C-alpha cells in the first residue's frame, strides 16, 4: 500500500475500494491479474465489459483478479512525491507484482493513459525494455480491432469479446508460470484471437525523391491473420449475477444487462454495428432473471437494458411484461436506451415523469441518410414526435454528424429545417404550456476501421467549422440549443483510429509532453500530437485523407467475419445513395454466414 494522504486528494474513494459485492481476492491463486482501466474510476466502473470480465476471472479458482484505474493528476503527483508506485485497489499490491496487467481500451484518446499507468506502476513502457519479472502487458477491448498505435507497448493483444478468450489466456498463464517471458509471450501468441506484435513485425515503405524527401507509400502486414473472438451463445456464456456497488457516484450508476449483442442495421459509419455482428439475443426470461438478481443483490434502483438497437429485440414486449410488475413493487426504474426512431414505443415510455427523448437522426436529408444507410424517413421522425408530444413530452435531443461522405451545405441546412419543423410540430401538438426544450447535437464524422467508410476522408477544419457556425446561428433564432463536438479532439481520434505502428513513437512523445486524460477536454491539446508527428516526420494527412482502396490498411490482418469486398460494395452503394435492408429483412452476404459465424436466420422467427 502506498502511503498517500487521501484527505488531500480529490474524490478519495476512487482509491480505496471496499465496494459491496467485491469478490474474495485469492492472494495465493496461481495466476494474479490486474485489470487496468485507462480512465478514472467513475468511467471504468461504469464499463460493462470490465464488470463481466472481472467477475469471470475471479470465478476461476486458480485466478485472482484485482482492479486499477487511472489516477487523477493530484494522486499521481502524490505518488511521485513519495516515490511510490501504482497499486491495485483491492489489496494495494503494486501493479508490477502481478503476472499480467490487462488494459481494457475503450476509445482512442485513452491510449496515452495506458502509458501513464505503466509509468506510474514503474513498468517499462516498451515491450523491448521489459525483463524477466515484469508483468505481461495485455490490451483488449473495442479498440483492439486496430491497436497498432499501441503495439510497441503491449506484450500481446486480444481481439474481440473477452468472456472465452480471457479464460484461455488465464489457463495459458497458469501452464507457463515460472517460464521465461519470451516463452510465455510465445505461448499466448498461439491462442486464437491473440497476437504478440513483437513476434509479427510490420515493414514501412518509403519513396525518396531526387531532393532526398521521403514519402510514406505503404506497409506490410503482420504475418498472422487474427480472428476476432465472438461469444457464440449469449444465454450460455459467463454473465455475472451481481455487480460491485461503488461508494462514489459513477457515470452509469445503475445495474446493466445486455439484452443482445450485435446489430443488424448496417449503418455505414458505425464500427460497433459491424464488429459485433452477428446479432445474438438473450431470452427475455433470462434477461428478467438476471435483472432481478442484479437489483436484489446490489440495491440499485435503476437498471439499464442495453444493446446497440433496443427496438430490434424480438421479445421486447415480453421482457417489459416480465419486468414492469417487479419494477413497480420495488420502486425500480428500468431504462431502454438506443431505441430507434421508427418505432417509438409510447406505452413503454416513462410513465412517471416525462424526461427527455433522444433520437440519433445523424443526417439532415433523406439522400444523406440513404448514403449512410440510416433507414429512417422524416415522416417517421415527425410521427413519432407527434405521439410523444401528445403524451406530454417536451424535451427532445437530436444527434447528427457533420462531415459525412458526400455531404453538402444543403444537407446541413436540412438539419436546421428539420429542427424548425419539430419546433412547429410541438406548438401544434403540445398538451401543456411548457416551452419545447429542443437540443441539437452534432459530432464530427470519424472514418473508422471495419466500416464501409473506412477509406473516407476526414472533413477539413474549414468545412466543419463553417457548418457548425451556420447551425449555431440558424438554430439560435428559434431558441434551439446547439452543441457541437470539438474538431481538434476528432482529429486526434481519426489519427489514432486509422493509425499504424509508427504512431507508437508519437504516442510516447505526446505522453512525455504531458498528454494524459486526453478524453477530458480540460487536458486535451492537439498541439502535442502535431508536434510529435513533426518530430517523427509523419504527415498527419496520411491518416486524415481519403485512403487508397488498393492499399494495405494497418488493420487488414484482423478477421472480424465481414469481408473487405462487402465493405467496398457498401461503399459503392453509398455513393449512389442506395440503401441496404437490415439482416432481419434479408441476408446481404456480408461474409459471416459463409464462415459459419451467423445462422443466416431472421432472428425472432
Amino acid at each position: 500500500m502506498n502511503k498517500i494522504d487521501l484527505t488531500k486528494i480529490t474524490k478519495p474513494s476512487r482509491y480505496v475500494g471496499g465496494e459491496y459485492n467485491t469478490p474474495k481476492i485469492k492472494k495465493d491463486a496461481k495466476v494474479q491479474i490486474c485489470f487496468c482501466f485507462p480512465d478514472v474510476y467513475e468511467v471504468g466502473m461504469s464499463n460493462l465489459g470490465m464488470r463481466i470480465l472481472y467477475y469471470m476471472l475471479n470465478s476461476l479458482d486458480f485466478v485472482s483478479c484485482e482492479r486499477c484505474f487511472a489516477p487523477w493528476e493530484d494522486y499521481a503527483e502524490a505518488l511521485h512525491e513519495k516515490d511510490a508506485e501504482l497499486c491495485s485497489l483491492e489489496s494495494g499490491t503494486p501493479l508490477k507484482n502481478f503476472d499480467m496487467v490487462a488494459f481494457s481500451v475503450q476509445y482512442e484518446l485513452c491510449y496515452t493513459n495506458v502509458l501513464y499507468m505503466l509509468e506510474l506502476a514503474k513498468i517499462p513502457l516498451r515491450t523491448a525494455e521489459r525483463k524477466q519479472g515484469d508483468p505481461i502487458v495485455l490490451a483488449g477491448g473495442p479498440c483492439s480491432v486496430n491497436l497498432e498505435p499501441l503495439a510497441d507497448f503491449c506484450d500481446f493483444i486480444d481481439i474481440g469479446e473477452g468472456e472465452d478468450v480471457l479464460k484461455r489466456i488465464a489457463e495459458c498463464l497458469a501452464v507457463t508460470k515460472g517460464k521465461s517471458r519470451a516463452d510465455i509471450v510465445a505461448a499466448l501468441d498461439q491462442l486464437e484471437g491473440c497476437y504478440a506484435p513483437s513476434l509479427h513485425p510490420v515493414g514501412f515503405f518509403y519513396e525518396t525523391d531526387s531532393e532526398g524527401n521521403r514519402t510514406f507509400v505503404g506497409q506490410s502486414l503482420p504475418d498472422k491473420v487474427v480472428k476476432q473472438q465472438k461469444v457464440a451463445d449469449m444465454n450460455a456464456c459467463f454473465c455475472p449475477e451481481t455487480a460491485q456497488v461503488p461508494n462514489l457516484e459513477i457515470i452509469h450508476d445503475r445495474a446493466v444487462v445486455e439484452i443482445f449483442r450485435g446489430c443488424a442495421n448496417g449503418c455505414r459509419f458505425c464500427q460497433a454495428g459491424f464488429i459485433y455482428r452477428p446479432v445474438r439475443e438473450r431470452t427475455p426470461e433470462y434477461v428478467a432473471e438476471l435483472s432481478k438478481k442484479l437489483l436484489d443483490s446490489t440495491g440499485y434502483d435503476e437498471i439499464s437494458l442495453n444493446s446497440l438497437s433496443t427496438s430490434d429485440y424480438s421479445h421486447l414486449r415480453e421482457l417489459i411484461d416480465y419486468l414492469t410488475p417487479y419494477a413497480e413493487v420495488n420502486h425500480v426504474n428500468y431504462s431502454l436506451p438506443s431505441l430507434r426512431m421508427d418505432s417509438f414505443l409510447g406505452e413503454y415510455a416513462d410513465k412517471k415523469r416525462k424526461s427527455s427523448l433522444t433520437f440519433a437522426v445523424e443526417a439532415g436529408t433523406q439522400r444523406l441518410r440513404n448514403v449512410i444507410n440510416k433507414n429512417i424517413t422524416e415522416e417517421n421522425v415527425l410521427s413519432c414526435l407527434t405521439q410523444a408530444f401528445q403524451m406530454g413530452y417536451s424535451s427532445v435531443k437530436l444527434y447528427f454528424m457533420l462531415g459525412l461522405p458526400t455531404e453538402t451545405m444543403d444537407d446541413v441546412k436540412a438539419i436546421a429545417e428539420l429542427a424548425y419543423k419539430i419546433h412547429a410540430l410541438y406548438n401544434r401538438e403540445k398538451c401543456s404550456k411548457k416551452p419545447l426544450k429542443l437540443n441539437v447535437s452534432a459530432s464530427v464524422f470519424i472514418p473508422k476501421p471495419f466500416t464501409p467508410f473506412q477509406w473516407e476522408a476526414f472533413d477539413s477544419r474549414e468545412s466543419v467549422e463553417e457548418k457548425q457556425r451556420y447551425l449555431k446561428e440558424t438554430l439560435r433564432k428559434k431558441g434551439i440549443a446547439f452543441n457541437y463536438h470539438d474538431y481538434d479532439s476528432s482529429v486526434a481520434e481519426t489519427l489514432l483510429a486509422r493509425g499504424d505502428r509508427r504512431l507508437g513513437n508519437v504516442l510516447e512523445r505526446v505522453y512525455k509532453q504531458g498528454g494524459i486524460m486526453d478524453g477530458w477536454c480540460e487536458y486535451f491539446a492537439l498541439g502535442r500530437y502535431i508536434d510529435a508527428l513533426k518530430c517523427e516526420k509523419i504527415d498527419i494527412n496520411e491518416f486524415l485523407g481519403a485512403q487508397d482502396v488498393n492499399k494495405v490498411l494497418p488493420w487488414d490482418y484482423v478477421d472480424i467475419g465481414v469481408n473487405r469486398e462487402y465493405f467496398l460494395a457498401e461503399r459503392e452503394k453509398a455513393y449512389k445513395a442506395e440503401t441496404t435492408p437490415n439482416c432481419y429483412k434479408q441476408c446481404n452476404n456480408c461474409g459471416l454466414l459463409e464462415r459459419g459465424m451467423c445462422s443466416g436466420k431472421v432472428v425472432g422467427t
Partner: protein
Amino acid sequence: MIVLKYEKTYPSSMVSHIDTVRLMNRIIRRSGIDIAYSAGFNPHMEIFFSPALSLGVESVCEMMAIKQPSDIEAQTKPLSNATAKSTIEISSAESQIEVNASKDCAEEAHSILHGHNADAINTNTGIINDAQSILQRLNAVTVDGIRFTACWIKEKNPNFAAHVYYASYLFCLEGIGSLKIDDITKGEYFIEYIEKGTLIKKDISDLVKFVEVRDKDCIEATLACGNKNLKADRFICGVCANNGINAEGVKIVKQKMFDEQLNEITVALL
C-alpha cells in the same frame, strides 16, 4: 420511524456525505426493510441524517432515521432469497428498545439472509425482537466501514437538526499532546484556512466548548456541530499550524453528539 446509530470508519470515512446518502439507500434496499417513499414525480426514500460528517473524519456516533409506510408500523418484506420465505412480523409494542449489535449478530444475519438458518425466523415463540432483526439485516448487507450499532423504533421523526449542537472528537497523531490548547477556550482564538481559493482568518472561540489533552498522542475537543458548525479537520489543522506542527496523517474520530445544554444525545432525548 426507525432510528439507527452507526459507525463510519475507514474506508467509508472517505465517502462524502452525498455519496453516503446514496450508499444508505442501497443498504436499505438490500436489507429488505420496508421504507416510505416521498410522493410526486420523483419518489425518493424518506431517510434523515444527523449533521454531515467531513470527508476523512471517522465517527462512532452517526445517526439516521428511516420513515416507514404510515399504515404499517414496521413490516419487513420477505427477502428475495428463495429459502427465506416467511415475512418477519415486527411487534409494535417493542417501541423503544436499544439493542447493541455485536459481530455475532452480523454473522447470524448473514446466515439468515443466505438461507442457512431459516428456522431462526420461524421460531415457535413467533416474533423476533424487531429492532434486533433490523440491525441484523442491515449489518448483513452493509459495506466495509459502516456498522450499525443500535436501533430504536420511535413514533416521530427525531429531527436531528433541531437537537444536535455539539460533537466531541478525538484527534490522534504522534506528538499532538504537546499542542498549546489552553488559550483556545479563553477568549478570541484565530485559525486560518483556505476556502474556495481564499485564505480566511476566523475566530473560532465561540465554536469550541472544550479541549483537553488525553495523552501525548491524543487530544479531545468538543466543537459546534450542526446549524453552527466547526469542521473538525479545519479545527485541528488550524490549531496545529498555530503551533508549528504538521497535522498530516491525524486520525479524527467523532465520539458523541450533544444538545445545546451539552447533554449527550440519546434516544430518550430525541
